[in-house]
């Protein structure tokens, strides 16, 4: 059944399941634009937490900035109306990325403003999803820098996207591999206890009394399933079919992380890295 699925997929995409460079680039740009746009719409709604009685008041946070001149610059930049303009400008740049593709101007702008937004939130707002957003942006920036330095000749365009995809794919696969390996090294994860403890402390409240993941055997089974799957992530580079299957499972995994932990940004941020993984796996 699995073989038949792959043969149908091969026929649909072109044997042997190789994603073309332009197709992978467009998929990556559109998925990234979608992911980062969701983040911006959410930031626009968070004004109440950044001013007045909110937790993230710049008046206090500005002491984090060690340099006086930069502190003054950030004072101006993080004033409510200016910061809002910055977010809307980011949204425009993302629309141009989705509709027209990446160029040096929109990518450099998105890169710099992403870092500025992160500094506003003391370096990271949502942890992992901020990191992965920066990884994809860095990949796009790498491609644009190479393209512009080499004046976009066809051979160099291939090199530019190759650098972009490999950078993103290695970082994305590393994220699964490291996340799985550190759990494998912890006895509380190997025994299944950690999963239940983290789920009980999650943002949506503790698991219901009768929930299956409160059963030790089920929590152990699920933990080992996640650990082994994450540790096996580097193997996806051996075959594009494995990469597609891995990405489908990863999407399900991130959906579960969203459902239990509320981390919606992780789902989209990692999804944006999948075209790079599938492209790299198709190069062998």
């Amino acid at each position, binding site marked *: 059944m699995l073989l038949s699925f792959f043969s149908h997929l091969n026929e649909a995409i072109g044997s042997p399941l190789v994603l073309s460079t332009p197709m992978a680039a467009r998929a990556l740009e559109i998925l990234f634009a979608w992911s980062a746009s969701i983040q911006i719409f959410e930031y626009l709604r968070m004004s109440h937490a950044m001013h007045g009685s909110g*937790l*993230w*008041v710049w008046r*206090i946070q500005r*002491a984090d900035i060690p340099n006086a001149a930069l502190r003054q610059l950030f004072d101006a930049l993080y004033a409510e109306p200016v910061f809002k303009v910055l977010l809307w400008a980011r949204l425009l740049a993302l629309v141009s990325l989705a509709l027209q593709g990446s160029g040096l101007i929109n990518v450099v702008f998105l890169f710099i403003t992403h870092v500025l937004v992160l500094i506003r939130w003391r370096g990271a707002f949502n942890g992992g999803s901020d990191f992965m957003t*920066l990884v994809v942006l860095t990949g796009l920036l790498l491609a644009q820098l190479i393209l512009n330095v080499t004046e976009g000749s066809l051979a160099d365009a291939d090199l530019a996207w190759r650098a972009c995809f490999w950078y993103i794919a290695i970082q994305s696969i590393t994220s699964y591999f490291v*996340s799985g390996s550190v*759990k494998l090294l912890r006895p509380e994860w190997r025994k299944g206890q950690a999963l239940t403890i983290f789920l009980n402390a999650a943002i949506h409240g503790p698991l219901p009394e009768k929930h299956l993941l409160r059963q030790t055997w089920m929590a152990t089974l699920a933990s080992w399933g996640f650990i082994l799957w994450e540790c096996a992530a580097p193997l996806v580079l051996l075959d594009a079919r494995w990469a597609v299957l891995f990405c489908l499972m990863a999407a399900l995994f991130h959906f579960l992380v969203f*459902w239990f932990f*509320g981390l919606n940004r992780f789902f989209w941020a990692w999804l944006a890295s999948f075209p790079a993984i599938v492209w790299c796996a198709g190069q062998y």
Partner: protein
Amino acid sequence: MTSFWAIAYFLLLLVFLIYKTPHIQGPWLFLLRSFFPNWKFFHAVGYVPHLYARAAISLPEGLLQWTDWQHLYPRTPQRLWHLFYNPETNLALAQQNMVDHFWADLNDLPESKDPRLLVSYQMISHFVEAHLLEKFPDGTHHQFELRMLLDSPTETVHSHVMMTSPVVAKSCS
């Protein structure tokens, strides 16, 4: 050749995960930490910092009448459409991350230094005051505590207080 480099990279990564590397700190490294992701999600189980706060009303005889300690631990409802738009949950998660950073700052603070000078302390204090003012508008004083809770799969098995703030009178602003 590419496969060789890929295998070598992941083996090297494994070595670095097993052996502890020095922890480098600095204000800019903290603000730009997104450039150095460690990808270690939900890995260690142990004591977790939780924020507690209480408000008081000043009685005519000069005493303070305190409320019970409030556990400021965010909880939000689970909705499918939050996959596309989830600002309140993300803010709540950021709040708890902030408490984690506050704990880390306290942990790293030299004995002789006043925690009130920490940016994280000031942010938490400001947040607590606003939160309590909303919940107890008549409150005249507030105080907060950072408690460390150790959970098992079924219950909290141990807790201790890491820090109790001084009692602070309501600011005029």
